[in-house]
C-alpha cells in the first residue's frame, strides 16, 4: 500500500480532533479453521455486492435461510465497491466481493486483494469464464449485443461490429466506454485481432461521433428516446426493460455472429477477499452462487446466462452455445491498462 507515511499523520489529526482513542474494531466473524470444507461455517458473512438488491436480494435471502449464517450485504456500484475495498485496506469488513463485471474482479486480483479459490469451485464453469490464476469465478454470463431502434431498422442491423465504422452510422451510435464490460470487449478485440485492429475500430467509431453514456441502461434509454439508433450494450438490459415497459418498446437486441469480437460473453462473478474474517462462510457463499438452484435463478430472474452445465437459459434468448462468441480468455485482464491506454489514445476517454 502506498500511503505508509501519510497514514500516521491522518491518524494523529483525526484522533486529536475527535479526542477519541483508537481501539481495534474487533473481528466479529469466526475464522474457518484449517479444514474449511469439513465443518459447516457459522457466524457473520459480509458480502460486498456490486449488483442491484432487487436483482440478487432474493437469491441472497435463500442462502441466508439455507446456511443459517448472519449474511450482511453492502450494495453499491461494482467499481465503487472495488475501490472501497482498496481504500479499506487490511481493515476491510468484506468477506466476499460479488461484482458484475470481470474488470473490477481483475482489478482487485491485480492488487492482491482476492484469495485463491479451490479447483472444485473453479471447475464448475468453463475456463473462459474464470480467472486463470483462480482468484475469482464467473457465476452468470452476459452477452454483448447491438441494441437498435426498431422504428428505424425494422429488419435488424448489421451482425458484424466492424460494420458500424461505416460513415452511414455517423451520429447514430451510443456507447458507454467507461463501462467495464465495454472495456472487456475492447480487450477481447485486441486479443483476437491485435492492437492495431482494435485501435482502428475505436477510431472508426469515434469518427462517427458516437454519443457517450455512463451506463448500459442509459444507452438503452437513449435508443428508446431516439437520441441514438444503435448502442453497444449487454443483452439483459432489454429483457428487464421489456418486462416493465411492454413489448411495444421500440428496441431489440441484435446478437452478433461469426466469431465477432462484438459477440463476447462477459461475466458477473465472485471472489473471496484476502482479508476475509470468515473465509469458510465466504467459500460456502461462492459455491452457493454456482449451485444449480442459483444458476436457475440467474436464468429466470435476471435473464442472464447460467454458466454451469445442465442449466438452460431463458428460452427467448439464443442458447449460450449458439452465440458465436470468440474463443478468447476474457479474464486476460493483465492488460486492462493497455486497453485503457488504447481507448484513451483513440481519444474516446
Amino acid at each position, binding site marked *: 500500500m502506498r500511503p505508509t507515511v501519510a497514514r500516521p499523520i491522518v491518524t494523529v489529526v483525526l484522533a486529536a480532533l475527535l479526542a477519541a482513542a483508537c481501539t481495534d474494531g474487533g473481528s466479529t466473524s469466526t475464522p474457518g479453521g484449517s479444514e474449511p470444507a469439513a465443518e459447516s461455517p457459522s457466524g457473520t458473512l459480509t458480502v460486498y455486492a456490486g449488483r442491484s438488491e*432487487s436483482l440478487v436480494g432474493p437469491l441472497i435471502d435463500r442462502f441466508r435461510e439455507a446456511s443459517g449464517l448472519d449474511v450482511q450485504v453492502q450494495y453499491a456500484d461494482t*467499481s465503487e465497491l472495488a*475501490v472501497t475495498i482498496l481504500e479499506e485496506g487490511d481493515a476491510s469488513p468484506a468477506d466476499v466481493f460479488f461484482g458484475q463485471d470481470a474488470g473490477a474482479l481483475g482489478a482487485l486480483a491485480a492488487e492482491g486483494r482476492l484469495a485463491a479459490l479451490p479447483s472444485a469451485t473453479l471447475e464448475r464453469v468453463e475456463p473462459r469464464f474464470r480467472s486463470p490464476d483462480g482468484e475469482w469465478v464467473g457465476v452468470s454470463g452476459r452477452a454483448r449485443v447491438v441494441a437498435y431502434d426498431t422504428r428505424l431498422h425494422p429488419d435488424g442491423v448489421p451482425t458484424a461490429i466492424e460494420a458500424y465504422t461505416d460513415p452511414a452510422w455517423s451520429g447514430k451510435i451510443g456507447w458507454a466506454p467507461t463501462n467495464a464490460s465495454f472495456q472487456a470487449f475492447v480487450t477481447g478485440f485486441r486479443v483476437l485481432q491485435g492492437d492495431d485492429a482494435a485501435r482502428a475500430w475505436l477510431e472508426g467509431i469515434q469518427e462517427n461521433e458516437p454519443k457517450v453514456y*455512463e451506463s448500459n441502461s442509459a444507452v438503452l434509454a437513449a435508443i428508446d428516446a431516439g437520441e441514438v439508433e444503435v448502442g453497444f450494450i449487454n443483452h439483459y438490459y432489454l429483457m428487464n426493460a421489456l418486462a416493465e415497459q411492454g413489448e411495444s418498446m421500440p428496441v431489440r437486441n441484435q446478437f452478433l455472429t461469426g466469431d465477432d469480437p462484438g459477440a463476447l460473453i462477459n461475466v458477473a462473478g465472485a471472489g473471496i477477499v484476502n482479508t476475509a474474517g470468515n473465509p469458510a462462510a465466504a467459500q460456502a457463499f461462492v459455491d452457493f452462487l454456482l449451485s444449480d438452484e442459483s444458476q436457475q435463478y440467474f436464468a429466470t430472474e435476471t435473464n442472464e446466462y447460467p454458466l454451469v452445465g445442465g442449466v438452460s437459459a431463458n428460452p427467448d434468448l439464443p442458447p449460450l452455445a449458439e452465440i458465436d462468441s470468440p474463443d478468447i480468455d476474457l479474464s486476460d485482464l493483465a492488460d486492462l491498462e493497455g486497453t485503457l491506454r488504447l481507448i484513451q489514445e483513440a481519444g474516446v476517454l
Partner: protein
Amino acid sequence: MLAGQALRPGRTAAGAIGTDDTARPAPRPLLAVGLAIAGLALLPLGYLVIRAIGADVAALDLVIRPRTLHVAASTLALALLVGAGTVGLGVPLAWLTTRTDLPGRRLWTVLVVVPLAIPSYVTGFAFLAALGPRGALQGLLAPLGVERLPSIGGLVGATLVLVLASFPYVVLSTRAAILRTDPTVEDAARLLGDRRSTVFRRITLPVLVPAIAAGALLAILYALADFGAVSLLQFDSFSRAIYVQYRASFDRSLAAILALMLVAMTLAVTWAELRLRRRAVAYASVGRNTRRPPTIVPLGRWRWPAVAFCGAVVGLALVMPAGTIVWWLIRGIGQGEPVRLVVDGAVNSFIVGGAAAVGAVLLALPVAFLVARHPARLTTFIERATYSGYALPGIVVALSVVFLAVNAIPFLYQTLLLLVIAYAVRFLPQAVGSARAALVAVGPRVEEAGRTLGDGPLRAFLRLTLPLLRPALVAGGALVFLTTVKELPMALLLGPIGFDTLATEIWDAASEGFYARAAAPAALLLVLSAGTVAVLLRSEERGQ
C-alpha cells in the same frame, strides 16, 4: 435621479449594521471550535493530497494532457452558465413571490422551491424523455411532420437541467434578504422622486447582491459536484472525469489529481463570491420593531405574463420530472409490476436527513458567529474552509471518509453516526450562509444589551440572539435535509450495511432500468421534501 444619488450607500455602510466590532478579536475558545470545524471540513482535501502524492509519475500523462484542459474549460463554462441561469430565474421569482400582487403568490412560493428536492438524474431523465429527439414533444409534433428534434445533450442540456435543479437556492437566499430589507429606504427614494425602476436598480438590488451571490454560489457548487445530470446528458465536467478514473481504471491517484483541480476551481468561485459580499451595502435600520412589511408592487398588465413565467419554470423544473415519476408508476402498474411501499427507506431517510440538518446547524453557528461578529483573515479562512469539499463529487468525499475512518476511527466505520457527521460537514455551507446573513442582520447590539444587564457572552447570545436566529437556522437546516435525503454515493458506501434510504432504493431499481420500481421511492422522496419545504417557508414567514 438626484435622490438616487443622495441615497446611494457608501461602501462602509455595512458597518452600520453588523461590523461595529471589527477590531475586537474573537474569543479564543470560540476560535478553537471554529478551527476544529474547519479542520474537519478540510479532511477530504488532506486525503486527496495524500492520494495525489502517491500518483505514478508515468501515469500522469493521462491527466496532464489537452483533454484535461478541455474538461476544465467545459466545467468553467458550465459554472458560469449555471450561475447566470439561476440568478436569471431565481431573482425575478424571489421578487415576484415577496413584493408583488402575483395571483396565487403563496402557492407559487412553495412550487418554485420544491424542485430542490428532485435528484438531478431524475430531472435529467425527464428532460431526455420529454424533449429528446424522439421524446414526448416530438410525439406531439409528429402529426406536423417533425421526425426528430435536435439533440439536447452537451452543454446546453446540462446547463438547463442543472439550472432547473438548483435555481431554488437563489430564490431562497434572495427571498430571505428581501424580507429582511427595510422598505422605508425605498419609500424615501420614491418620495424624493425616483422612478420605481431606478429605485430597484439603485436601492433594492445593491442590498440584495450578497444574498444573490450566496445563493448562486451554492447553485454553482452544486453543478460542479453533480454527476447524475452530466452523465445522462453526456457533458464532460470534472465530476464526470473523476468518475471515469474510478470506474474505468480504479485509479485513485489520478482521480485525486483531477479532484484537486476541481477544488482549485471551487476556491476561485468562492473567492469571487467573497468579493461581491465585501462590496455589499446595507442600510442602518431604525430597529426591528419599527419595520413595516414590504411594500407590495401592483403588477398591473404584467400580471399574467408574470404568472406565465412562474408557470413555465414550475412546469419544467417540477411538473416534468414529477410527471415522469408518475408515468413510470402508471406504466409499471400497467405491466403488472407490484407497487412496493418503502416505509423503511423513508424512515431512514428522515432520520439521516434530520440528524444531518441538526448537526450542520450546530456546526454552522460558531462559524457564522465568528465571520459575522469578528471578521478577520482567520475567521474568513474558517468560513471558506467549510466550502472546500462542497463541490467535490460524492464519491470522492465518500472514499475519503472510508480511508480516514478505517485508519483512524475504525469503531465508527459503517455506523449511522459517521454517516451523519459526514453529511453535516459536507453540507455545512448551506447552513452557514443563512446563519451568517441573519447574524449580520440582527446585529451585536442585542447581545451587548444583555451583557450590560449582567449576562455572560454565551448566555447573552443564547438568551437574546439565538431566538431571533431561529427562522434562519430552520431554513439552513431544511436545506441540509433536502440535500441529504437525495444524496446517493455517501449513503451507499458509508451507511451501515443493509441500510436503505429512499435514494438508495431509487438507485437500486433505476440502475438496472427498472423505472417503475424506482417510481414509488421517488414519489415518497418528493412528498417528504415538499413537506420540508412547507416547514421551511413557514418558519421564514414567522420570522417576519
